[in-house]
């Protein structure tokens, strides 16, 4: 029981860690590239590393925090321009080749001894050299806090029955969320669409012309229940989050190196990024992105400047990547080797797991990906004797399982958790 509780606790810690949030943001950027525009960027870690270097080097040299952030963004912007200018006019595969090699070049330049004064070469930059201005912003004060302050140990000292009831309630909440989301999807085309771009471009207004088919009835039903359903989903999500922290009380320093402060900022930024992406993709500009993903030439024939729009998408996704990179190094250090190809693949795993071309997919995917990896590692450590698999091997084993899981997702649920299966039927 205690082992299971410990594994669950570490899963939760990993799920809410600032680095998970950082990967979620980078995956949101990748979603703009790959999910919405169809740009195959295999060098997202390059954008992240540039953002991190821009941020860490400038602050390390005494520039203010805001300048550091802006320089990180500027580096990613230039990177996007340099990569995009020659390749966005060519077929999609060229961008893939160029991005993956450019990201590797950035990493090798970063770890080369030539620029040791700036990048610290392979040793990287220590967090202390750039973290202080950010920590000083904290209004959380010193000391430790536990989330949630009211938790299982307050009821009957965390007896087994309390835990069981709690977990059952959590399972019920999650089942409720799944049911509500599915109910919104299962309806005929009109309803599905209305729930998809929650902006409601078509929702009740579409009821004006009368059509004597099934869709007309369903439309009315959804028109009534859509806001209620959305509120229900929101309430259940809030309740599940509370239950998680109720069942697995987690404590950190309030500010500290890697405490609640950096977690708070990280997840706040995730929320802001989600909002920005939502605003972007529900607009006609977002429609253009999807059009380009489907068929560039068709969009060209309609008088749209495809190159400019692809460039805009590449830059925006790259800026998300840079922001993710800055967050990634904030509680740790800038290590070029920890931000290589595998980080890009983690971003892709998160994206595909959650569902490409959905709003929440990348975040959900990142959380599940990191939590699942810790779970595999924890279970293997606890229940597989060291003679079969030692600590280091479980680490590698967890990556193998994740890789196999990714393959299974792509084969059996290519649309990811939140994706729309119907869209995939028309693969071109």
């Amino acid at each position, binding site marked *: 029981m205690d082992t299971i509780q410990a594994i669950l606790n570490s899963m939760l810690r990993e799920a809410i860690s600032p680095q998970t949030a950082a990967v979620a943001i980078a995956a949101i950027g990748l979603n703009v590239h790959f999910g919405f525009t169809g740009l195959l960027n295999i060098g997202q870690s390059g954008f992240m590393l540039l953002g991190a270097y821009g941020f860490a080097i400038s602050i390390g040299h005494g520039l203010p925090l805001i300048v550091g952030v802006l320089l990180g963004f500027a580096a990613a912007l230039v990177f996007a321009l340099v990569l995009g200018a020659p390749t966005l006019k060519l077929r999609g595969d060229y961008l893939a080749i160029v991005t993956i090699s450019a990201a590797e070049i950035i990493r090798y330049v970063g770890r080369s001894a030539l620029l040791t004064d700036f990048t610290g070469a392979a040793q990287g930059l220590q967090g202390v050299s750039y973290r202080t201005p950010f920590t000083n912003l904290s209004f959380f004060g010193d000391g430790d806090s536990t989330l949630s302050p009211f938790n299982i140990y307050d009821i009957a000292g965390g007896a087994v029955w309390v835990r069981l009831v709690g977990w059952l309630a959590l399972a019920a909440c999650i089942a409720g969320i799944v049911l509500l989301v599915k109910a919104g999807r299962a309806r005929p*085309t*009109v309803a599905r*669409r209305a729930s998809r771009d929650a*902006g409601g*471009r*078509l929702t009740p207004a579409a009821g004006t012309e009368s*059509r004597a*088919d099934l*869709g007309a009835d369903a439309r009315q039903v959804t028109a009534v229940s859509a806001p209620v359903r959305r509120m229900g989903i929101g309430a259940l999500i809030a309740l599940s989050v509370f239950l998680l922290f109720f069942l697995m009380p987690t404590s950190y320093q309030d500010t500290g190196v890697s405490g609640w402060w950096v977690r708070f900022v990280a997840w706040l930024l995730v929320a802001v990024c989600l909002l*920005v992406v939502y*605003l*972007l993709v529900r*607009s*006609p*500009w*977002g*429609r*253009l992105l*999807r*059009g380009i*993903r*489907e*068929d560039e*030439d*068709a*969009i*060209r*024939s*309609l*008088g*749209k*400047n*495809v190159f400019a729009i692809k460039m*805009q998408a590449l830059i*925006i996704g790259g800026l998300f990547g840079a922001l993710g990179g800055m967050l990634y190094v904030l509680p740790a250090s800038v290590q070029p080797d920890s931000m290589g190809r595998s980080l890009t693949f983690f971003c892709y795993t998160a994206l595909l797991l959650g569902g490409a071309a959905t709003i929440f997919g990348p975040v959900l995917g990142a959380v599940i990906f990191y939590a699942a990896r810790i779970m595999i590692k924890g279970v293997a450590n606890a229940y597989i004797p060291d003679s079969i698999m030692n600590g280091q091997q479980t680490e590698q084993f967890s990556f193998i399982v994740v890789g196999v899981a990714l393959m299974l997702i792509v084969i059996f649920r290519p649309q990811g958790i939140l994706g729309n299966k*119907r*869209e*995939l*039927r*028309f*693969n*071109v």
Partner: protein
Amino acid sequence: MSESTVARSDLADPATRQALMAGVDATPGSAKPDSILVVDNIVRQFGGITAVDVSHLEVQRGIITALIGPNGAGKTTFFNLITGFDKPSSAKTGAHWSFDGATLDKTSASSVAKAGMVRTFQLTKALSRMTVMDNMMLGAQGQAGENLLKCVFKPLWSGQEKAIEEKAKELLQRFKLLEKKDDYAGSLSGGQRKLLEMARALMSDPKMIMLDEPMAGVNPALTQSLLGHIQSLRDDGTTVLFVEHDMHVVRHISDWVAVMAEGRLVAEGPADTVMSDTAVIDAYLGAHHDTDLGDDALLSDQAMVEIQQEVAAEQAEREEEA
């Protein structure tokens, strides 16, 4: 503006169009009284073969011009060249073409469309994983919401969006696709995709529309109403250039016919004249079905008048309905 309205109402009348084109020589590359598109020395070679080699072609404004020719004559390649989807091999040796007075030699495909010359594709390009409505909305020009800086502020574009949506619905209604508006375009049949593509092209109110085999795969009843629609486009002042293999259709609606064979422009003229032209019959009999063309040659003027009356009656009926 006033000048063009006069011209519009004029060209809606068949007699005026006939009178206008009667003065034009029925020879390849002849000059037109008011050409909207002028093409000079456009050559495109693929390896050894010359797909297009047109030394001069003018397209008259405000009428329907048909571009015909056997398979592989270079019609699609010609479309690609003048709409910026392909570059002529003769780019540096005198290729020159202009649309509505503006030179297009080095213009990108999107700028050509922006200038008012919109095309459709022989192999349709429906945006499969988007709804029919989204496909249509993409066709509209000058959308404020397509600007990255404005797109996050919905009030800046929601009004325009509604207007565009209304227009899209109207067009979809006319093309019998309204019931499909929330389906994915990928779920449409081949003929429906043709219709969608044509409707989408019309969303931009083009000055000139270039249709590559718009009727291929569309059922006869709908073809009739599409022909009516193309004619009403012309009557509203849009220039139409279309590629078509069905000689009945060509005869039915075109005011002028240009014939290509093996990349060259071999004949031009009114439908009747062209179809009895020996060069044209040669070009077709060599490579194409012979019966159709033969049948058409038998069609008398009286039959033409009958067809036209039929169409007029149908149109009147439709207008009554509306």
